[in-house]
């Protein structure tokens, strides 16, 4: 099973169109009956003016690719898509898009869910947000560790 060939994992520093990416992904796997996707976008409201994600080149993308491989080995998937932004973003901008294409719905849901839990808590990204003109680094959340514990 060649997992890498069926994973499309990208770290991008410019805005991307989730609609175009998902449409292309779905078209690539016509034999998959179901595609589950997660889109994370910069939340409007809460007074957040901007969000910035920092990555560390030698670690961030390799770890994302490793995660995609792990997901592929754990569930029966036709294909997997992981796109993560880095850099400065505005409210409404997409941050992350994960999609799993599978013959069976349950595999696609579990794979996307697992990938998000692990991306959020393990990925090499540092995040800061701008409120009232001031930047503030976001610290790790307890919730992320609980999310991961679900998978045993």
């Amino acid at each position, binding site marked *: 099973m060649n997992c890498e060939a069926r994973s499309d994992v990208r770290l991008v520093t410019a805005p991307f169109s989730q609609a175009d990416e998902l449409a292309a992904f779905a078209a690539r796997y016509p034999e998959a009956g179901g595609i589950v996707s997660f889109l994370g976008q910069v939340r409007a409201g809460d007074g957040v003016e901007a969000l910035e994600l*920092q990555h560390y080149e030698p670690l961030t993308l390799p770890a994302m690719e490793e995660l995609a491989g792990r997901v592929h080995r754990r569930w029966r998937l036709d294909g997997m898509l992981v796109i993560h932004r880095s850099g400065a973003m505005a409210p409404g901008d997409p941050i992350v898009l994960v999609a799993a294409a599978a013959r069976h719905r349950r595999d696609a849901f579990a794979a996307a869910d697992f990938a998000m839990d692990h991306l959020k808590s393990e990925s090499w990204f*540092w995040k*800061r947000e701008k409120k009232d003109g001031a930047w503030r680094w976001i610290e790790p959340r307890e919730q992320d560790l609980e999310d991961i514990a679900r998978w045993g």
Partner: protein
Amino acid sequence: MPIDLIFLGRLEDVAGAGQRAAALQPSVDAVIDSLEPELAQALRAPNVKLAVNGILLRDTDAPVLRDGDEIAFLPPVSGG
């Protein structure tokens, strides 16, 4: 040739920049000792991980540094 220090996340604020050059020292400990005390303390926090030339160090690793090496200081990632 100096070595490169990379400060991620909140460590960038403590260091005043995301990156700086430093004189070569034989060990990571000696490099940290050569920095301002406040920065040195922040880099030694138990939850800060280190990578040398893009390879994560385990706690027991004590690499010998060479000219041109890159040391990255990685605080906990931000999560969801």
